[in-house]
C-alpha cells in the first residue's frame, strides 16, 4: 500500500465475498438432505410457470421444511411487476 492508496477509497471486497457466501451457503444448506427429485421438480415447475408468466428463474424458490412428524414443501414465486414483462 503506497501513499496514493490512502486517498483512494476502495470497495471492501472481503465483505462482498462474505455476504455472497452467507446467502449461497444458507440456500444450499436448505436444499441439503432433501429428496433427490427436488432440483428436477424445481426445473419442471419453472417450465410450467413459464408457460403462463415470464418469471425470472431466480424468482422461484422451493424449500422443504421439516417439522415434527411432517414436511412442508414451500413454493414461492415472485411475479414480475408488469404482466408479461
Amino acid at each position: 500500500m503506497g501513499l496514493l492508496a490512502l486517498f483512494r477509497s476502495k470497495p471492501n471486497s472481503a465483505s462482498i465475498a462474505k455476504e455472497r457466501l452467507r446467502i449461497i451457503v444458507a440456500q444450499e444448506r436448505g436444499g441439503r438432505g432433501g429428496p433427490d427429485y427436488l432440483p428436477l421438480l424445481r426445473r419442471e415447475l419453472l417450465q410450467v410457470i413459464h408457460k403462463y408468466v415470464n418469471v425470472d428463474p431466480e424468482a422461484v424458490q422451493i424449500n422443504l421444511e421439516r417439522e415434527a412428524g411432517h414436511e412442508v414443501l414451500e413454493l414461492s414465486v415472485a411475479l414480475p411487476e408488469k404482466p408479461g414483462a
Partner: protein
Amino acid sequence: MTEIIVVTSGKGGVGKTTTSASMACGLARRGKRVAVIDFDIGLRNLDLIMGCERRVVYDFVNVINGDCTLKQALIKDKRLETLHVLAASQTRDKDALTEEGVRRVLDELTAEQFDYIICDSPAGIEKGAHLAMYFADRAVVVVNPEVSSVRDSDRILGLLASKTHRSANGNGGVKEHLLLTRYNPRRVANGEMMSVGDVKEILGLDVIGVVPESPDVLAASNAGVPVILNEDSDAAAAYGDAVARLLGEELPLRFLEEPKRGFFARMFGG
C-alpha cells in the same frame, strides 16, 4: 485407541496434502504412531511432499488387492521413527478402492496399534473423497479464505454429516475442525480477504489452525520435507499449534496480524 482423521476440502489446491504431511509429522514428533494414507488414486502426490517418492514399492491398492502385505507397503519415514506413509496407486482404474478394502486396511492399522491414521483426501466429491472420509472419527477441513473454497467446504461438511460411517450409525457423527491456509493478514487488514472470523461465521465451525501464506510452503514441497519441520517458519509454528489443539491443548491463534512495518515501508509501499 486409534483415531482416524480425514484431511479434506472439496476444492483442489488448497493445501490438503501439505496439511496431511505436516499434521502427520507433528503428531509423530510428539511420539504418536502415525500412518498417513494418500487416497488420491491415480494422482499420487503425498510421497513427493513427504520426500519418499523413490521408496514406493507397493501402494494402497496393492494392499487392498492382496499383492503384498500392509507391512511391505508402509514406508517408514527416515526422520521420524513412528511415522509411516502409504502411497496412492497410479492406476487409472476408478474402482480400485472399495469400501471393504479400505475398511480392511484401516482395521489392520488399528490392530497394529497406530495412534492416528491420517487420510489425505483427493479433491472433489467422488469415490476417493467419499472413502477417505467414510471411516473418519474426525475431519480437518482445509479452507482458503476465498469464495469457492469456502462454498466447497460447506458442501463437504454436508457430506461429513450424512455420508459417513459415524453419521450412518449414530455414533455422534464426525468431529469437524476448520484449518485455514494461505492466510494473508495484510490483505485481511486491507479488506481484500475474508478474515478467520468471517469464515468461521459462515461455516459455523471451530478453527483448529490458521496457517499464514508463506514462501516456506513451496520451498518445503520442493525439498520433500514437510513444512512443519522447518523451524524458522511461521507456517511451521502454525501447524505445530494446530497439532497441539488436535491433541486437546488450548492455544490462542497466532499470525493473524501482519508483522509491524516501519513508517517508511508503510508510506512508500513494499
